[in-house]
């Protein structure tokens, strides 16, 4: 069962532009306050830099190398897994809101989708992509 266009049109449209304008103003004030605080500390604080003070912190000696190091590939894996699952959740949002009107057909279609994803999840689990020693 799908939503007919007349049903769709009769849904109340609450999120209009003015509500988003309020958010815009709110964000402007929030970022304005943060910027004000930082500028205030630039104005009030002392400015007496020296080479030691401005070097990166490293247990009392000068840094051996640049900090842009190679790092563990597992951080990439976590990021990729996150994208997959976050996308899946983004698909679940509209489904969850309209489940009452799409009924059993909607439920089983999503079950198929989640099942496909579940196979991938089991595969990466068995491959050891989720292991951290």
């Amino acid at each position: 069962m799908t939503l007919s266009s007349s049903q769709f049109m009769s849904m109340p449209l609450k999120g209009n532009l003015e509500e988003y304008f309020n958010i815009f103003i709110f964000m402007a004030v929030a970022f304005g306050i943060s910027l004000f605080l930082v500028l205030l500390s630039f104005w009030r604080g002392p400015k007496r830099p020296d080479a030691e003070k401005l070097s990166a912190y490293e247990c009392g000696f000068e840094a051996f190398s640049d900090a842009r190091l190679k790092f563990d590939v597992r951080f990439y894996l976590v990021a990729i897994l996150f994208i997959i699952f976050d996308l899946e959740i983004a698909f679940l949002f509209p489904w969850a809101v309209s489940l009452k009107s799409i009924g059993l057909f909607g439920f089983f279609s999503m079950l198929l989708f989640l099942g496909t994803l579940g196979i991938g999840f089991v595969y990466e689990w068995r491959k050891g992509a989720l292991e951290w020693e």
Partner: protein
Amino acid sequence: MVNVEDLLFLIGYTLLIIIPLLLAVAYLTYVERKVIAAMQRRVGPNVVGWFGLLQPFADGLKLLHKETIIPTQANPFLFIVAPLLTFGLSLSAWAVIPFGPGMVISNINVGILYLFAISSLGVYGIIMAGWASNSKYSFLGALRSAAQMVSYEVSIGLVIVTILLSAGSLNLSEIVEAQQNIWFIIPHLPMAVIFSISALAETNRAPFDLPEAEAELVSGYNVEYSSMTFALFFLGEYANMILMSAIGSILFLGGWLPPLQIPPFTWVPGIVWFSLKMSFLLFVFLWVRATFPRYRYDQLMRLGWKVFLPFSLLWVILTAGVIVIL
């Protein structure tokens, strides 16, 4: 379009939320020190002002009068933008939080999506800070922090989906109204537990404070920061704690609704109930910090991916099944 008078009113309302919020953040740092002191049978701050009540302002003024250090190796633009982004985002989320019936700046119909988006953007502040500092400790701290935050965001997302299934709306006020008969914590108790643990991990709080693990990473992504740039990270973390408590009370504890819909409870205004629920959840944050030792990183990732993710997926399917059949 809007005229100047409306705009001024709007800025006034915005400040009406942001200024009490900043005070709440300042006093949360004070309450944290007092509560943990009491749990360890110490006194806590008691010198500045009556019962040490002026301590947060003394700390703030001290930080304001320190030198803002920008390391020579750092990328200066990103280095300054990172704390601004972290703090600005932690305040911006409050635009959609309903404090009572109709007491909200922006009643958008996708309120929960907005909150989810803003809390996801929080990772950028940390990654930028860690990369721009060009220090090994901040880089490692930022990597850990980002991996931890994205891992637990997945389970928070699934928790939100179960609530949406029960409430049938993305609007925060309608989610609260849907709890007239029963708070969602009762049918969704396991999800409430998952949400509270994920909230701890998402805000990098103890026992999941690995990014700042003092003993190994000195302070994580904010080692190189000083003065107000450091203070903004610090305040952002506390503002995020308050935000998580607000989201928790809206999703599970019925927001501004009284515990029972009978006279002695309904006389109290909704905003009081909302504040009480948030204060309780904040107390739990502090209580947990005073009680549990820090997790190991592999345990943390295992909990997120191998326990919370499969369990909350199954719970989503179970809830959907129950709703379809009924």
